[in-house]
């Protein structure tokens, strides 16, 4: 028999406001597609500024260890990306999603990436075409 459920309005219980919905995160790389170092700190700052402007605030996590296999050379790149994330307000996020996409593509292009990793609401995806 399933356990009984007790309903609770967590936000109201803390006197909070539930304006913020889903989580958007971008992985800021510290290496390029060939394993050479990139200016990670500058891109972290830029991502924080942009996400804070769009969402009202943003957080950068400590570096995590990740791996990416270059599909062209076959080389495995072990890197330490920094995850910058924000909980977004739906209307503002939709209005400014184009700016975010432009930022991600510029970062991918200027740091010579094979892919930029992103998350939205728990869904993990990559951007691999950065345009000119």
């Amino acid at each position, binding site marked *: 028999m399933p356990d009984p459920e007790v309903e*609770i309005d967590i*936000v*109201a219980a803390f006197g909070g406001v*539930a*304006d913020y919905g889903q989580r958007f995160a971008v992985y800021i790389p510290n290496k390029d597609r060939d394993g050479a170092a990139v200016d990670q700190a500058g891109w972290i700052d830029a991502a924080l500024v942009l996400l804070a402007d769009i969402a009202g605030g943003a957080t950068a996590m400590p570096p995590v260890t990740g791996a990416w296999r270059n599909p062209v050379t076959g080389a495995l790149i072990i890197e330490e990306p920094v995850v910058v994330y924000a909980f977004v307000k739906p209307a503002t996020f939709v209005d400014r999603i184009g700016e975010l*996409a432009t930022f991600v593509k510029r970062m991918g292009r200027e740091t010579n990436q094979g892919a930029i990793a992103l998350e939205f609401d728990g869904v993990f*995806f*990559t*951007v691999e075409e950065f345009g000119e």
Partner: protein
Amino acid sequence: MDKSSNKSRHNVKLVGRTARERLRDVSRRPPAIDAQDVVAAFNGRPLSMTVGSTRAPDMLLAVRNALMDRLRSTGGRPGLAGEGARQRVQVSAQDWQRIADIADHVEVGRHKPSPAQVASVLIHLALERIPAKEVDRLVQAEQQE
């Protein structure tokens, strides 16, 4: 301070009980955006993977990295570095099969680790997740009894 109360304060035991009631959050939330619409806006490629999924290869990568750190070759099949003695540990057939499956999916250079080597690394990684302070506190409490 009363010695007996001091003793009982340190006599910490971990007891698991079945939850009888669950909380369900009914807070009002802003309308959700479909994640697939966001992926499309970025012209992104979904990886059929959700954050925190046990199917994600993070754990396999952690196992492989730990094996890379610890496997040492002296000419024959690489062995685990360190002075640890071999221990006899009972493992269920189901768990051993999962360990063997992990060993099949991890390569370190040209070497495929044995299930026993993977089991050693998995125990180490699991222990790293238990804060050392908690274990020390339990040991001290036992010694004071």
